[in-house]
């Protein structure tokens, strides 16, 4: 079943690269949205929740870890799956963000196969 996806990253180029990699992974989303930081992501979510969010950690204004906490405080977004996509590979950071409510973690550099592995349980 096609679902909705939001990519949250402060780099427009990285958002395009992620979108391209998602397509290469063979996963199809009915609706895709983009946001440049946590604040923008929350604004876009208020217009309608999405099924899956791919979220960078280091972003200006509101970073990915703060965004996860905010999203998890809002009951309307309870079913939204959040996968972090970051160069950050420290076990402590990964454990913290997972404890705050993220559903998965993809470390950059990534492959289409990695997206397929992490996203397909939430898409199919």
């Amino acid at each position, binding site marked *: 079943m096609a679902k909705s996806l939001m990519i949250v990253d402060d*780099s*427009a*180029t990285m958002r395009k*690269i992620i979108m391209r990699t998602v397509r290469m992974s063979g996963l199809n989303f009915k609706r895709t949205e983009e946001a440049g930081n946590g604040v923008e992501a929350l604004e876009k979510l208020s217009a309608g929740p999405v099924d899956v969010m791919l979220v960078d950690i280091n972003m200006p204004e509101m970073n990915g870890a703060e965004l996860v906490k905010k999203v998890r405080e809002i009951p309307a977004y309870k079913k939204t799956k959040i996968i972090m996509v*970051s*160069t950050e590979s420290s076990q402590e950071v990964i454990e913290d963000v997972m404890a705050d409510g993220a559903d998965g973690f993809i470390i*950059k*550099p990534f492959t289409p196969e990695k997206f397929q592995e992490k996203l397909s349980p939430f898409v199919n």
Partner: protein
Amino acid sequence: MIEQAVLGDALLQGAKEVFETMVFMNLEESSQLDPSIDGRALLGSIAFKGNLEGSLHICCNALCAQAIAVNMLGIDSAEKINEEETCDAMCEVTNMVMGCFKSKLADAVGDLEVSIPSVVRGRELKNTLGKGASKILVKVNIADEYVGELSLLYRNSPEQPSDKPGIDK
């Protein structure tokens, strides 16, 4: 103590991983004696601090940077890419190489805090970290077509206790 060769290897292996996985270009240590970067160049930089402090840099000419951006974005022609996208792609490559470098050295030097990457453009670009800093320079061949430079400027952190890992030159 971690040796300088280990840092150089982590830098090269990190760059190889990023170029193979995300840039779809082959990157190898250059066997030429002294290849130089011709013309206008782009220099991607990112700073780090922790038990080590310094900065990591990737430098190549404008044509190579454009090819990197074209490949990362999956665009069929270099004409469709603008300067901002090229710089952004260089920033992302620098950021990811730093991520790989940091991950490979995590056991030896502990966690490193990193800055936001930046890119400067110009000719004969040089980087420096001031007095007491060491430099590792790895010349590379990208896609058998372009010359590039990976460099690391660093010093042991002043706050580093004597029993913490450090660098052995």
